[in-house]
């Protein structure tokens, strides 16, 4: 199954880079949905195999990240009437190059990180997960639109989920479902927030909120 896991992680890395290269919000949302589905497939191909626990987990992750979150974000996008990330702090060409640098850093980190002996020997999972986390963070800080920042948050969460899969084999189902619920509530609240910001200010540029005075 190692080949499959490596393939999934490689696809996630490509999606990360595509996310950095695009400015179209619908495309961003679709990318992060596909990435969520890939993360959902990871437990099925993990060493523990197809058990009731992994199947329930995969179904929940795929349903939430593949269907519910994209729906929420698309609705928020339509409500705010924005299509593109017009002027990010870092342009898409430079973002791609920085993404490659982050990729290099995460492979270096992945080789250095002292992991518990039980960690699986699938080589790509740890650096791929670190890279996904870093790129999610980078998207959050380098983009202005609130929707893209939520997308960055979701990428970050995908990275953490993949990392959790790599390091810990037996997290109780309850905890993983709890984390999913948290993410769901966070995205739900953020979608409502985006709607209110756009209603109040006619835009969703998060950087302009910092100029507000109480």
């Amino acid at each position, binding site marked *: 199954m190692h*080949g499959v896991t*490596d*393939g999934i992680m*490689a*696809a996630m*890395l*490509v999606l990360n*880079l595509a996310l950095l*290269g695009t400015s179209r919000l619908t495309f961003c949302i679709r990318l992060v949905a596909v990435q969520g589905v890939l993360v959902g497939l990871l437990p099925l191909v993990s060493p523990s195999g197809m058990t009731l626990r992994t199947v329930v987990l995969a179904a929940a992750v795929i349903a939430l990240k593949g269907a519910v979150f994209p729906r929420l974000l698309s609705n928020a996008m339509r409500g705010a009437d924005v299509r593109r990330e017009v002027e990010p702090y870092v342009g*898409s*060409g430079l973002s*791609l*190059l920085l*993404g*490659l640098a982050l*990729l*290099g850093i995460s*492979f270096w980190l992945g*080789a250095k990180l002292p992991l518990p002996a039980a960690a699986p020997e699938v*080589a*790509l999972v740890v*650096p791929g997960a670190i890279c996904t986390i870093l790129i999610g963070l980078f998207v959050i800080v380098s983009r202005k639109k609130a929707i893209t920042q939520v997308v960055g948050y979701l990428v970050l969460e995908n990275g953490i989920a993949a990392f959790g899969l790599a390091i810990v084999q037996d997290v109780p189902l309850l905890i993983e479902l709890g984390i999913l619920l948290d993410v769901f509530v966070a995205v739900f609240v953020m979608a409502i927030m985006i709607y209110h910001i756009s209603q109040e200010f006619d835009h969703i540029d998060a950087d302009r909120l910092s100029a507000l005075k109480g």
Partner: protein
Amino acid sequence: MRIESAVHFAAALVFAPLLLGIINRTKAFVAGRTGQPLLQPYFDIVKLLRKGAVYSRTTTWIFRLGPALGLAALTLALAFVPFGGAPAPFAFDGDFLLVVYLLAVARFGIVAAALDTGSSFEGMGASREVQFSALAEPALLLGIIAVARGAHGGFSLSACLGAIDGQAWAAFGPALALAAVAWLIVFLAENARIPVDDPTTHLELTMIHEVMVLDHSGPDLAYVLYGAALKMWVLGALLAGVLVPVRTGMWAVDSAAAAAGMVLLAVLVGAIESSMARLRLVRVPQLLVAASALSVLALILLMR
């Protein structure tokens, strides 16, 4: 030199313009037109070779040298490119650097000739050609290094492409696929195909390759056309070498598989041209940087 290498080299020289014909037929089929005959590129080249050349008084010997230099460099590059698992006529460690720079020499010949005409129009095309190929070169080179690293065959093109078989794909499939996608983008950019440049337009401000050869006529234009076909074969053979991992050891089977790969590649290019519009000029560098990013990703996946 092995006999099959010589046969492949001769076949490449003969069949290279056929790729252009296949692309044109595919586009015509998708658009529902009858289209030009499959052998039209050959007719064009033969017709041009029988004509005389017209030279502007502002041009110098550089203008006459350009097409011949381009054709010579591309023919030499072709001699280093393996086909269907059989080694190329010439090979040594690190010859991929020579191939990439022979492509650059050919480009230099065409660009210098374009600048020599003194036309600002051709100067613009030359500047764009150089800009985009400077961005495409790292994608190509890094992709070759990644493939060489994955195949563990050695650092000549013949050795590393010859070692790409089913096992290499099973072991490094994702990385090889990434390198192949990067090469496909380079293939489209270097051959002035559609997402980057439109080969059918003349006299349009956004075109790149066609604008540089406007002043060539007669045999010189035939050299340019034939050189473009050879360049397409060189880059296409690299792509087919990675994407068609048929290495049975039987010469006929391997060659037939690689030839089928080339035909499919031409059909694919025709399909891309039929279904896409050309990118805006400012988006092209982004596409090429993305190709480089894919190559780097492939390299990193294989380095670990």
